[in-house]
């Protein structure tokens, strides 16, 4: 198991290194954007560029870039946005917004998704199941920005339950104040719909397959009530597949949703990424691309490993 994890992690870093190299070279091939005049920071940025060897060959630049990351964890400074500020620090400032919104939406979605899924599986092929399946189909297909528009129009504008955009930190007091929480809710709901739907679908499919197993019959025969049999045997077995998916979602909360953050004005990493692309700030773009690559790879690994941890029948990395 340990060996398998080590192998996967090493492979992950290799993949990241290759992607980073390709991205770096492709970015360096682009013309270097001029530093905007804005007083004292220009000199800082120019000095930084000199230090990073911007007029040397690309491979030397890449060496310096890697050296800075490994020795000082320095991803450069903002050139077109947040001028002169350390890229990594800015990202870390933005991260709490993204994490909170996504965390709330998952915490909301998991119980709902599981409940609907279990209910549909128990009522399989009855009208309740058909209703839930149809709704799941619709909610999975409709793009999440459509929910965002609907929620923004009806809940925020028409009914006035929530503010149209996220409250600013200075107004709300703190990230965890009630005001901040309620202004996050529209985004939380918009993100939640599709998560609830996909979790419902997964749970229903897994549970209804498990319920037909022979051991379920045995459990009933030995005298367990239906509720006991389902909670002790069926659900546990279904969880083998459902839990890794939930764990994968948790890793994904770091990434967030670009479009939802844009619509509700959430100053998270997604908005930062979009801005960095639009204003062509390559330092931010590079760092954040790596961030997203890392999230993707890490959630894949955690997902695979969690199968092994949850299900004792699966042995990781064994030859046979």
């Amino acid at each position, binding site marked *: 198991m340990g060996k398998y994890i080590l192998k996967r992690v090493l492979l992950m870093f290799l993949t990241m290194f290759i992607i980073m190299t390709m991205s770096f070279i492709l970015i360096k091939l682009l013309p270097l954007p001029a530093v905007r005049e804005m007083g004292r920071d220009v000199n800082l940025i120019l000095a930084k560029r000199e230090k990073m060897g911007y007029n040397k060959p690309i491979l030397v630049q890449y060496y310096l870039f890697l050296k800075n990351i490994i020795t000082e964890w320095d991803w450069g400074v903002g050139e077109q946005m947040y001028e002169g500020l350390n890229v990594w620090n800015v990202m870390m400032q933005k991260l709490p917004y993204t994490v909170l919104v996504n965390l709330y939406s998952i915490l909301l979605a998991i119980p709902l998704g599981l409940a609907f899924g279990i209910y549909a599986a128990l009522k399989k092929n009855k009208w309740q199941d058909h209703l839930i399946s149809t709704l799941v189909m619709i909610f999975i297909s409709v793009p999440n920005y459509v929910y965002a528009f609907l929620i923004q129009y009806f809940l925020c504008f028409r009914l006035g339950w929530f503010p149209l955009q996220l409250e600013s930190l200075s107004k709300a007091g703190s990230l965890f104040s009630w005001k901040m929480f309620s202004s996050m809710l529209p985004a939380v709901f918009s993100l939640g719909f599709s998560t609830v739907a996909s979790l419902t679908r997964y749970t229903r499919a897994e549970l209804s397959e498990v319920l037909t197993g022979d051991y379920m019959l045995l459990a009933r025969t030995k005298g367990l009530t239906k509720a006991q049999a389902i909670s002790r045997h069926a659900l546990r077995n279904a969880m083998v597949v459902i839990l890794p998916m939930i764990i994968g979602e948790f890793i994904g909360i770091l990434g967030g949703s670009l479009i939802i953050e844009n619509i509700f004005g959430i100053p998270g990493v997604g908005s930062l990424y*979009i801005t960095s692309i639009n204003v062509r700030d390559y330092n931010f773009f590079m760092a954040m691309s790596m961030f997203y690559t890392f999230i993707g790879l890490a959630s894949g690994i955690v997902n695979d490993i969690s199968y092994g941890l949850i299900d004792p029948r699966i042995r990781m990395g064994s030859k046979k």
Partner: protein
Amino acid sequence: MMNEQRIPEIPAEKFRFIQQDEKIHDERIKTKPIGYFKDAWLRFVRNKSAVVAFVLIILLVLFAVIVPFISDYDVNFRSGYYKTMQPKSRLFAGLGFWDGGRQENLNLDSYNAVRAIGTETGRNVIMRENRVYTDAKGVEYHDVKVDSYYRVGFAYLNLTPEEYRKLKDYQDQTGIQVIYPLSRTYNIDFLQGNAGANYWYQLTNEASTSTGTPALDENGEPIPNYLTSPEKDKAGYDSLRVSWDNGGEDGNTWLVYAQKNQSGYRVRVDYYEYFRYIYGQEPCFLFGTNGYGQDILTCLAAGARLSFLLAISVSLINFVIGGVYGAVEGYYGGAVDMVMERVSDILYDVPFMVVATLFQLHLAQKVGVLPSLLFAFVLTGWVGMAARVRMQFYRFKGHEYVLAARTLGASDRRLIFKHIYPNSLGTIITGSVLAIPGVIFTESMLSYLHIINLETSSLTSIGTLLAAGQGYLSTYPHIIFFPALFISILMISFNLFGNGLRDAFNPSLRGAED
């Protein structure tokens, strides 16, 4: 011994050959054979939701293909005056909905201004008066339904002598009043566009800070405030005149319809009729117009056409690349598979945003926005397809029929394309179809976020339309409603259709529903 005794003696002449003149063969199977695709088709048509989704997709495709041809406007069309118009259908206009009407709460000044437009043109701008109320501050409001088209009212235009002459000819021929008398205005802000063209009456305050409060006569009606002249045909105007222009009591107070300036003539036109004069028909936008004055119907169809074209080409290219790549991986296995799988692993892990952005930055200048987006989709898109094909090949290559074909001397190519491919085709087609909504969604997201800009004179995309409507979400929700509805139906249909295909191509479900 005993058996021989039991059989009675049969004389030789009693025997005859029954098939002496006939050819011996097995009986032919009378029923028609059900092939792979026929079988899938039978299962597909039984899935009602998939069939409905398929029909919907066809309708949406037809919408995207046909509408740009029959539409009265093109993507390039931007009306400077008819912005944020409500949807209006000629068919339903009389029934009180889909008639271009909009619910508005107007204060007294706006209410009078809106009503005055109707007084002059003879078209009722106010469709329905719901109620009059006073708010907490004591300000009177009118809750009314206003015709958003009629509300535009008048505009000041500068016409060249040629255009001026043609417009006059048009008036003479049709008898429709387009040019209205100029109003006497002292407000410099009101000389161009339609900012002040609707004020044909006296204001209580004519200064540039005017709030537009009309000076009403004792009957509560606005007092006309037209430019007058003793000449009847001032600035060469010899065409139709409005009914209240009768030379006045002294017989030589004529209203002025045009003013000569450096480039031509300045006139005040009823924009509704002017639109009809220019475009040959009354303004009527089935889905309304957005904040740029674009016809949403046409733009939506054009955007949908782009999305379909992009998604289908991506899907086809991925089908070919992924198919060949996966086939080679799966068929040869071993070291070839190892190496190729690592390559596709790395490509799979590159976030799409990174690819799309880098391609935009590098290629958009050279080959155009759309091709570079297509490349971006293809670069990472085929990996999923390749994985699917590889799985299928691993599944089928060990089967006995493949071994038999190989024993008979079939080449690798023949085995791949003749024997294994047809068997895995169902899964591959399903994968291709299910990839289409993903492409459409991603494209709309990227153009919504302005990461790609597909907007040109003849192109637009659903994402761009959504972005154009977002600022108007609270005031004019119809701008975002139609594109959002369209893409939602599209996504639901494609997913249903894809699921139906998946079930249809899955022979293990044969007879499962019976």
